[in-house]
């Protein structure tokens, strides 16, 4: 079945609307489901079913779930500043819109990951080399600061000034690395 909105992509998200006249369903593709909020989302018009999300994404139909709330009282939650995805919308479509979503929803994610990944909530696998370097730079800055304090305590002010400059340069590099997007090289 194709998406009711764009009629092009296959529908993968079902929106149900309950009203006095009965229940209507709209079948949307991920992209249209995502955009439906940014362009014409009206919470009164299309109440979204959290149960559907849970049953679809977590394979749970149990009504005693932590996310189970009445539709009206389920708040939008925080909204991602980069892609405008709200937490509630995230639950509905089951997809993040951008890397910043992870930061925006950080506190709420362990509960979801725990359900999806057999109780696990933290990554323990491969780390990109560039991130190892990032950690290394952070650690180095801490070390230099300690040395700087020692130099100050021992009144070696020239040494302290040199260390301060070194830390400053490293902090600048760190800012470049974690800035994202444009800075391709951490070296």
């Amino acid at each position, binding site marked *: 079945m194709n998406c009711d909105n764009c009629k092009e992509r296959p529908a993968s998200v079902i929106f149900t609307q309950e009203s006095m006249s009965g229940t209507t369903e709209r079948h949307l593709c991920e992209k249209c489901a995502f955009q439906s909020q940014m362009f014409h989302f009206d919470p009164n018009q299309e109440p979204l079913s959290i149960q559907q999300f849970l049953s679809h994404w977590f394979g749970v139909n149990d009504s005693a779930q932590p996310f189970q709330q009445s539709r009206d009282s389920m708040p939008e939650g925080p909204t991602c500043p*980069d892609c405008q995805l709200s937490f509630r919308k995230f639950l509905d479509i089951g997809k993040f819109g*951008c890397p910043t979503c*992870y930061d925006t929803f950080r506190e709420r994610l362990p509960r979801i990951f725990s359900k999806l990944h*057999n109780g*696990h909530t933290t*990554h323990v*696998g*491969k780390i990109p080399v*560039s991130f190892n370097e990032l950690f290394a730079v952070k650690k180095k800055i801490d070390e230099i600061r300690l040395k700087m304090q020692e130099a100050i305590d021992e009144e070696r002010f020239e040494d302290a000034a040199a260390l301060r400059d070194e830390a400053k340069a490293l902090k600048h590099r760190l800012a470049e690395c974690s800035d994202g997007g444009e800075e*391709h090289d951490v070296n």
Partner: protein
Amino acid sequence: MEVKSTMSINKFMKGAVTGWMASHGEHSDIVMSTRIRLARNLRGYRFPIAFTPEEAQKVDASIAAALLNSDENGYAYMKMSELPSLERQVLVEKHLISPQLIDTKRHGAVLLSKDETLSIMVNEEDHIRIQCIYPGFQLENAYDHADTVDNYLENELPYAFDEDFGYLTSCPSNTGTGMRASVMMHLPALTITKQIDRIIPAISRLGMVVRGSYGEGSEAPGNIYQVSNQTTLGKPEKEILSDLKNVALRLIAHERRSREILLSKSRVALENKLFRSLGIITFARLLPSGEAARCLSDVRLGIDLGIIEDVDMSILNELMIFMQPGFLQQYAGSELTAEERDIFRATLFRERLSAEQHEEENDKEN
């Protein structure tokens, strides 16, 4: 006349055979292929579900540039929007791209290594999907290959990565390692004896998923199942691989035992079934895809058990791919109706199997 068309089929197939269809590799009688997929995204860009066409183009251009500049692999680069729909379908049928990549509005593209072992999808659900398919049961080798490409890309492009959550992906079910490892297994004896129905729920309790080879749903045409890891968070890659390996090894052992039991308890009935299937694919004039898949499974089992001797396994692997609609139509050079496809499929099978016999006879004469 017949020889001419046979040659053209051989030529067509040789041009279309892809690395993972070979019939070698450990346990290759049961494990047909091994696949590793790594999902990655670039830092500073929204995911394909939410990005603008401008972002899509930038992502596509930077990934393509990074890979095409690497002189090692010699990738072929194809934009989905520029590829005829039949060719896209053929790539899907060869398992080199996913059906989702074809959504042209996302500026999807694929980079293929020469032997087609490696395919890197751009702007599918994530910016980058590194996929490596090996013949037989080769989880470590396939992972090492994908990992090498991942290391190269990571050096060229900044990935979206988080200290707590690992590799950030659009779908929370991929967060962490971003890795999906899967093995495609031919399990006819477990299916015939219905043991598979009890095994599938048991495996899912171990954090693994079993489905039919063509993605979602448990229906398994041709008794081919895909077993893969479900969890991507909280376990290192090597542990996920070894867990999957253990599950697959247990399935292999079960399947072998069931085959022995079938053979000892009802040899004649089994031989009858397998040879009838060989008869169908060798002589049929109309061959619907379901029947073709079932018969290929039987003949494959027959070869594995030493009951059917003069058919080459690699031909079965080829036919399994070439029996699909996209391939048939590409070979025919035009669109075909369902019935025309059944006729064409029967012709293709007949000629491919008889071409094999011709080759054997020629070999004997020489």
